């Protein structure tokens, strides 16, 4: 398994500002994933972060809005930029643990963001 520490756990932010969310894993992992969960909705993948290369964004998400850093194999950050109330969501980071095809996803505690 993998233990993931994510912070902050929650925040209330003013519109137009930016928030950086940190994700720390207790082991080295190749890929880290960032998900968004809008109120009352399911989880949607924002991007995949690989160490040493730019993140790969899913359709509907862009780097200018959600810049991601991946400085090493145990850490990543997601920034939510120029926030609006529509960005109010839970943001979660995730990693896989296992070998080969037999891998299981684990999630951080999530960051509950409210934009006012």
């Amino acid at each position, binding site marked *: *398994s993998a233990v993931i520490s994510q912070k902050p756990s929650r925040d209330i932010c003013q519109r137009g500002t930016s928030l950086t969310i940190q994700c720390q894993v207790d082991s080295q992992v190749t*890929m880290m*994933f960032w998900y968004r*969960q809008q109120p009352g*909705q*399911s*989880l*949607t*993948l924002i991007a*995949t972060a690989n160490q040493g290369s730019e993140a790969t964004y899913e359709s509907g998400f862009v780097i200018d809005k959600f810049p991601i850093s991946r400085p090493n194999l145990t850490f990543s950050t997601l920034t939510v930029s120029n926030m609006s109330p529509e960005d109010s969501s*839970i943001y*979660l980071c*995730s990693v*896989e643990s296992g070998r080969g*095809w037999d*891998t*299981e*996803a*684990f*999630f951080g*505690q*999530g960051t*509950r963001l409210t934009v006012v």
Partner: protein
Amino acid sequence: GIQVEQSPPDLILQEGANSTLRCNFSDSVNNLQWFHQNPWGQLINLFYIPSGTKQNGRLSATTVATERYSLLYISSSQTTDSGVYFCAYSSGNTGKLIFGQGTTLQVKP
């Protein structure tokens, strides 16, 4: 595209009752997991089950990959079982999970 459908969307049970949650998926499965999301938003891993059957206490799960569905069984439900249950799966080795819309379970005392 790849789809994941969960049913029922909502479920209300009396404490002690049993229930079955279903997850249908549209493609061959590499990874299938069941999660419970607690009121604080944290996702708790219940089962990693791309095929076969597993049991953990009052919970068990079965995935029939050839027929593209998975079932989560909750027996003798307790109020602490309340919350949202998600299935999520991936096809291929990308690690990207696609989530169903969830089943919101309420267990009444």
